[in-house]
């Protein structure tokens, strides 16, 4: 039992708890929060598993994950605030149009 396995186990349990929150809800925002948290934990698990298997090139993957997590959440904000993905999130740039 290495430390990597222990950490991986802890991350998995934590993912399970976040998934439980995602299923329980109650609001849609709780579910976004859980999906986001699962994303962060996935990033960590990938890094740890990469070290466990002796293949740290998994880290590129971890970077992609955090990037995708971020874009997903921004899209959600936009969807909630405006109901469309179309216009700008911010109006500061439209002044000089």
């Amino acid at each position, binding site marked *: 039992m290495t430390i990597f396995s222990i950490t991986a186990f802890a991350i998995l349990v934590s993912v399970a708890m976040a998934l439980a929150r*995602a299923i329980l809800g109650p609001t849609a925002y709780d579910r976004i929060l859980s999906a986001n948290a699962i994303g962060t934990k996935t990033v960590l698990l990938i890094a740890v598993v990469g070290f466990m298997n002796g293949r740290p090139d*998994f880290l590129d993957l971890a970077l992609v994950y955090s990037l*995708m*997590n971020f874009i997903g959440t921004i899209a*959600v904000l936009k969807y909630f*605030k405006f109901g469309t*993905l*179309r216009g700008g999130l911010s109006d500061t740039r439209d002044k000089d149009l």
Partner: protein
Amino acid sequence: MEEFTDIFLMLLLVAGSLAVLYVRNLFVATMLLSAVSFLMALLFVTLDAVDVAFTEAAVGAGISTVLYLGTLALVGSSERPAAKLSVIPLLLALSVGGALIYATFDMPVIGAADTPVQLSNLTKRFVEISPIEIGIPNMVTSVLASYRGFDTFGETTVVFTAAIGVLLILSQKHVRRPEEDEVEQSGLKPAAKDHGQVGSPHDLIPHVVSKVLIPFILLFAFYVQFHGDFGPGGGFQAGVIMAAGFILYSLIFGLHITKKLLPLRVVELFLAFGVLLYGGVGVASMIKGGNFLDYNVLSADPVAGQHLGILLVELGVGITVTAAMLAIFYGFAGRAQGRGKDVN
């Protein structure tokens, strides 16, 4: 430990998928699906399939969520309740599922030494000859881009066709008043007003952070594109990350500004150019006297030829995927109008 991880992840996956099926609110289903997608990719990681996990990460968890949201903005987020519980489909699904489970008993153990994959001559050849013949460390790339170049060409064409299809369906002239573009900028919902303070109309934080991040996201896409020979990555993943960079830009600054930067016509040009580049490499190798997509003849030295061929082909895939993702995003996002909706 390995076994435990797999079983645990499978259980989570089943729980998540059942929840996706169960919920009636499509938005909630989208969020759960993105969580399930993360779990799925974790499974790929534990199976040591980095390239697949890479694609799942980029496509399943990231872009799909954005595209689903784009669709929801078009169709609304509540599902019509099912008419009635029908027995025959249930029985059919159960029996097919039962047959599949029965079939798994015949499957070899994961990682066993005597599975067909391990014993196949093809595997031996890929593992032993490809480093000499093609000379790049990432075997997945040499198999995908060289040995099975035809397959990948087909896949690229599928992506191309999908993008064309979406464009055809979604870019039809749409009855829309010209001033709508201006109005929807301030589509804040009134619900926030009774809280004594309205949400800020411009979101400074994502705005500034994205400005800092976007150049690095694009650079990372290029990095993935050119390092597909050495580690996980390649054209597909790079294309999706590149598109993600532009989609982030579009989410923050608005579709109209992105379209000014990269008009739909240019995207369409890139879309076709990528496929043509791939096919062009094939034709070039035919002109040089080899078979279609036989990179050995592209240069005097066969290994150098393979390198050049794979590089160009991956570039073609990357360009096509970027353009296809953007075209699909333009199609979905460009059509939806802002409107208030109930999500809770």
